């Protein structure tokens, strides 16, 4: 059964806020930048409110826009590096499993992005490819390399 999209911005924020923030925080490693990315995403969402076919379509759109916003921030950082990213404090999140959190955060952004969409959001390779505008083979490659790097970092389980 298809679920209905949100009716108001409050409802959308309650429904999707956490998952968009997780994605942005994992991609950007900075709560402040993550907030900016999510804020910008919801501002875009205002223009689209009421136009989604169902909740799944709405969620996919929000995740895509969030990843694009995060990429913008990353590109801006490449052009104007200001802060050493490893020194940014992780306000608001106390990792339970510090080893996995630190290993994940140490991965390049392109691997973190697909790992979150796959492992946390449960999207399949083809779906992630559509969400982030890559080919399925590129997504598969990133998932595989991302997992391998995590394993190397944590030691084989």
């Amino acid at each position, binding site marked *: 059964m298809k679920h209905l999209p949100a*009716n108001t*911005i*409050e409802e959308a*924020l309650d429904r999707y*806020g*956490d998952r*968009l*923030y*997780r994605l942005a*925080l*994992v991609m950007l490693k900075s*709560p402040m930048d993550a*907030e900016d990315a*999510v*804020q910008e995403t*919801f*501002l*875009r969402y*205002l223009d689209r*409110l*009421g*136009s989604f076919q169902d909740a799944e379509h709405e969620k996919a759109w929000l995740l*895509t*826009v969030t990843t*694009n916003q995060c*990429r*913008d921030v990353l*590109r801006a950082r*490449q*052009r104007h590096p200001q802060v050493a990213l490893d020194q940014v404090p992780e306000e*608001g*999140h*106390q*990792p*339970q*499993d510090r080893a*996995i*959190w630190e290993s*994940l955060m140490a991965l390049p952004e*392109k691997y973190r992005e697909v*790992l*979150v969409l*796959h*492992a*946390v959001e449960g999207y399949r390779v083809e779906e992630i490819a559509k969400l982030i*505008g*890559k*080919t399925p083979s*590129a997504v598969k*490659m990133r998932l595989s390399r991302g*997992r391998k790097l*995590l*394993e190397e970092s*944590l030691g084989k*389980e």
Partner: protein
Amino acid sequence: MNNQRIKREIETIEMPEDMKARILAGCREAEEKTVPASKRKHPWKVILVAAVLVVCAVPVLAGQGNSLQNPTILADHQAVEDAGSQLGSFSYGSPNRRTPHSLEEMTESRRMKWEGWESEDTMRGTVVMDMTDWVAMEVLEADGPVKAREVYERGGGVKTEYAAEDPADLQGLESGAVTWDLTWMNQHYCYVPGANFFYRIQDRWGNLLGEHASTLYTTQDETAWFSLDWTYDSTYAYDGTNNFVAESDYDQVYEYTTAVGNTFLLQFYGDCVWAECQTTYAWVSLYGGYLEPEQLEELLDNLGLTIGG
């Protein structure tokens, strides 16, 4: 690595309440700035208007997408000028050399791109005129029969580019606005390895803006060669009404409609040959040397070309 372990860790992250409040306040502020409360439309009205617009726009766009926009063939320059003076403004193309570029010349820039796949010197080029400021790139595949990379535009656009030894390996990457089947081509002509490219350009939201495919072939004895390309640009509706060619400029110029119904303008001058099928949003073209009209017609008939919207 166990997905569950990653999921468990990531799912402990929640957006702080004060952050949620700030985001909500930001959205409300933007809403108020955009539309005064007294004038805000009910969502159903917006949806109704959008639905009416979609119903009206779809047939128009579909018609435009398939609408042929080839230049009109007129007898000579005088006829072009007469037609142009009635229209106010016009353009017409004419050949400037009887000898085609050599195969080496046509291969050179392609080879630079193939061999320089990891260099930013080769990342420019566009079919979307609003997107020319390519600032960075990421190579996805640098080796193997198909190379891939992403090129980033300052405004957030992304160009996803592929290069292949065999152009048939690039089939299936296209959106469907234009497609071809190179099976017959690969059986009857030889592709030039590493001289074949495809890219798509998307805006920062992932919407498709344009695509471009380019291939280079020779006859099996290498006595004739040609590039065979197509371009799709959803951002610009081309109108060929004021565009002409003068028959007197060429040795031979005529329109040819392929077995599947695509009408090409074929032009021959000296040893040069051109073919083009221009529609509102797409352009399929061939340029090369030493092909006979019958060869060219047979080739176009066997492209399996579809041009949609």
